[in-house]
C-alpha cells in the first residue's frame, strides 16, 4: 500500500506540520485568552479553509498545466530553499548562536502585546482576535502548504502523493490541536529544533535530487541516491553544529575572561 517514498513523504509532512501547528497554537491561545475565543476560532477556521483552498487550487493547476521536468525544477528549488532555511536556523540554535525556540516565552510576550490592544468589537465579534488568529494560522500554515504541494507533486502528474501529503498535515495539526485543548497551554516540550533539523535534512536532500533531475542531471543509482544525499547533508549538518558549538563556547569563554 505504501512505498518507501510515500512513508518518508508522510513523516516529513507530519513533522513539518507539527512544528508550524505548535507555533500557530501559541498565537491562538494568546489571542483567545486576551480577546475571547469566539473570534479567535473564527479567524483560525477561516485561515485553515483558505490554506486548504490554496492546496486544492495550486495542486490542481500545477498537475494539469505544468510539464514534469519543469515541475521537478520548481519543486526541487522550493524544497531546497525551505530546507536550507530550516537547517540554518536549526544549526544556529543547536550550536548556541541563536536562542532555542521557547513557546512559553513567546506566549507570554504575545499575551502582553495583545493586552495592550483595545478590544475592537463589531457586534459580538472582536476584530483584533480574528485578525491575529487568521494571520497567525495563515502565515504559519503557508510554509506547510508549500511543503505539502511541492512534496505531494514530486511524483509527477497524479493526485495520490498530494492526497497522502495533505492527510499527513491534517493528522499532525489535529493531534497538536487535541493535545493543546487537553493541556490548555503552549506546547513548550515539543522538540521543535530536532524536528526542524530532521525535516531540513530531508527537504534539502529531496530538493537537490528533484531540482537536479528536472535540470537533466543523471543521478547514479536513481532514487536510491536520495539516501546518499541525506547521509552527506546529515554529516555536514552535524559537523557544522560541532564546529560552531566549539566556536561559540570559545567566544563565550574569551568574553568572560577579558
Amino acid at each position, binding site marked *: 500500500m505504501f512505498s518507501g517514498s510515500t512513508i518518508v513523504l508522510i513523516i516529513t509532512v507530519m513533522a513539518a506540520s507539527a512544528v508550524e501547528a505548535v507555533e500557530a497554537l501559541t498565537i491562538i491561545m494568546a489571542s483567545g485568552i486576551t480577546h475571547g475565543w469566539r473570534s479567535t476560532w473564527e479567524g483560525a477556521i477561516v485561515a485553515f479553509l483558505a490554506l486548504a483552498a490554496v492546496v486544492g487550487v495550486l495542486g490542481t493547476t500545477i498537475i494539469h498545466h505544468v510539464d514534469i521536468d519543469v515541475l521537478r525544477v520548481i519543486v526541487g528549488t522550493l524544497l531546497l530553499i525551505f530546507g536550507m*532555511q530550516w537547517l*540554518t536556523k536549526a544549526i544556529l540554535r543547536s550550536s548556541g*548562536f541563536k536562542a532555542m525556540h521557547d513557546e512559553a516565552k513567546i506566549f507570554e510576550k504575545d499575551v502582553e502585546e495583545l493586552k495592550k490592544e483595545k478590544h475592537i468589537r463589531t457586534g459580538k465579534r472582536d476584530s483584533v482576535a480574528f485578525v491575529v488568529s487568521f494571520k497567525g494560522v495563515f502565515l504559519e500554515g503557508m510554509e506547510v502548504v508549500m511543503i505539502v504541494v511541492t512534496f505531494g507533486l514530486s511524483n509527477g502528474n497524479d493526485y495520490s502523493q498530494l492526497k497522502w501529503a495533505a492527510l499527513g498535515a491534517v493528522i499532525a495539526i489535529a493531534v497538536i490541536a487535541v493535545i493543546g485543548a487537553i493541556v490548555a497551554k503552549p506546547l513548550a516540550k515539543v522538540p521543535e529544533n530536532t524536528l526542524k533539523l530532521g525535516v531540513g535534512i530531508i527537504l534539502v536532500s529531496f530538493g537537490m535530487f528533484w531540482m537536479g533531475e528536472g535540470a537533466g542531471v543523471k543521478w547514479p543509482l536513481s532514487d536510491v541516491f536520495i539516501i546518499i544525499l541525506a547521509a552527506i547533508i546529515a554529516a555536514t549538518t552535524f559537523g557544522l553544529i560541532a564546529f*560552531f558549538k566549539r566556536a561559540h563556547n570559545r567566544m563565550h569563554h574569551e568574553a568572560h575572561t577579558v
Partner: protein
Amino acid sequence: MKILKTIWKYTKSFLLFWQDFLVGDSPELAVGVLIILGTAYLLRKSGDWDVAAVVALALILMIITVWRKTREH
C-alpha cells in the same frame, strides 16, 4: 487613477509577501540555489561532473549561509 493605485498597492503587497516568504533575511540562499540550478543545467551532459557540482555547491552554500549568520549573531 485611483483604481490603478489600489491595484498597484495590492500587487506590491502580494509580491512583498512572496519575496519575504521565499527570500526572507537570507537572500544569499535564494541566489545560491539559482546558481546551483544554472550549474546543473550547464553540466547536465558532462558525465558525473553534474552530480559532483550540485552536491559540492549545495554544501558550500550551506556552510557560507551558516557562517554568515553566525557573524550576524
